[in-house]
């Protein structure tokens, strides 16, 4: 459904992605794990067209989307929940959600999707008139996910949704991610919390300094001695 082939992305002269190749199939949860600075965020930004790869291709549903603008990529069905949540602090919760549906003109369905988001995250309904910036970290993460769902994505890219959240909130967020996936949304999940990510994912990739060094079914990666010592802090 979504595939990267030999993607090389630079920040000026910094070579951040050195030929990343990965595939996400319809209906899957795929996780991308790796240490700080490995290039996880850059991979998602290269898919979303925020940082355009210098070499290599990003294909979605059989079409090359490497050079498309971000809004065209969103329009095709790839939405990102960025690292650090990036909610709009001085828009209300409701306005944040509506920005997620910016490209849609089917008002009635947008309304229904808004209700659906409030169902997934009842806290957001309570706070719908509050500014996004006044929410707690966990609530902001819920808002960021809800906002992305408002675009009715085919593929959802999630960048470290567990970052800075209490374990109980993380559990809750991961349950919701699985529910979203069961509802038919394909997911590419970037995480440093490899334990959690590999438990919910079908397959995983390990990224090290801009290159994929390991890939396979999530269960196998959980057992992999290298993954266990480097990313799970075990053995």
């Amino acid at each position: 459904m979504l595939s990267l082939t030999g993607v090389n992305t630079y920040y000026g002269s910094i070579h951040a992605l050195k030929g990343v190749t990965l595939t996400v199939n319809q209906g899957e949860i795929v996780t991308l794990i790796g240490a700080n600075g490995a290039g996880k965020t850059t991979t998602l930004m290269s898919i979303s067209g925020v940082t355009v790869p210098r070499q290599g291709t990003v294909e979605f549903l059989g079409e090359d989307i490497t050079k498309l603008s971000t809004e065209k990529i969103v329009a095709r069905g790839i939405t990102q929940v960025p690292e650090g949540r990036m909610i709009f602090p001085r828009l209300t919760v409701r306005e944040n959600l509506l920005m997620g549906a910016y490209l849609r003109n089917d008002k009635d369905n947008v309304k229904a999707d808004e209700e659906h988001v409030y169902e997934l995250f009842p806290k957001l309904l309570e706070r719908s008139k509050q500014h996004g910036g006044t929410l707690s970290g966990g609530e902001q993460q819920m808002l960021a996910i809800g906002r992305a769902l408002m675009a009715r994505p085919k593929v959802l890219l999630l960048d470290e949704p567990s970052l800075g959240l209490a374990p109980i909130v993380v559990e809750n967020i991961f349950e919701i991610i699985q529910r979203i996936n069961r509802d038919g949304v394909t997911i590419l999940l970037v995480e440093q919390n490899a334990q959690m990510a590999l438990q919910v994912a079908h397959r995983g990739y390990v990224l090290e300094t801009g290159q994929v060094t390991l890939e396979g079914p999530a269960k196998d990666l959980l057992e992999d001695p290298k993954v266990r010592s480097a990313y799970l802090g075990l053995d």
Partner: protein
Amino acid sequence: MFEQQLFNGLTLGLIYALIAVGYTMVYGVIELINFAHGEVYMLGAFLCITFIQALGVPLFPAMVLAMACCAGIGVLIDQIAYKPLRKAPRLAALITAIGVSIFLQNIAMIIWGSRPVPFTRSAVPAAFSETAFTLGSVNVSGLQVFIYALTIAMMIGLTLIINKTRIGTAMRALAQNATAAALMGINVNRVISFTFALGSGLGAVAGILVGMYYNTLSATMGYNAGVKAFAAAVLGGIGSVPGAMLGGVVLGVAETLGAGYVSSQYRDGLGYAVMIAVILLRPSGLLGKSVGQKA
């Protein structure tokens, strides 16, 4: 005497406010002080009298036409001069803005000459120059009524656009987090164009009103007004639209009262003194968010 001064100051302040929102909105979305904004204001006034004189268009349609032209000019300035510099250091764009300002001033001198010209008197309704009503000791002219009604209506309209429409919300979103705005599927360049069009249209109206109020237009009129309105935007808190409105009004009143009670020679200086005082006491401006709290 005091009431009359205050009233005249408010009139001027509302016009400053109309220009100041253009600075603040553009700053909000691309973090650029658009120094050419004063020239758009000047072009609005000249285009208006040109439509009246050369094409025989009546005043109000001429105003609408000038507004539309300036909206287009604002968009063009951005596309040609600023868009290629989106990712460049802000200083490069700032210097470019100053260049555009000088360029437009010179174009205006070539077309309309370098001497001040009067506003087309015959096109202005006679009622504008008469006293419309007296409120206590204050004489209110027809033109002042027009200026109040128009500027206030436009600011209400602008506030509604920014707060209630989809593109207005996108403007605010873009100002708060450009990457996130793009990730929502917002066409960032289109929203920036919209911002320039909106600010430039309002600036044009301000230019026309000033042209009528002082009955004089000049190719350099944009410089002074531009600096004043920029000061008003800073005074209110750059990036804040209500702040720019308030800043414009405060500056207009301070200046007019200063000129009336101290000396008209200090008119400009007093306006800036107020601005400097506010910035010293409250660096983020009257309604600005506190410094360093962008995200």
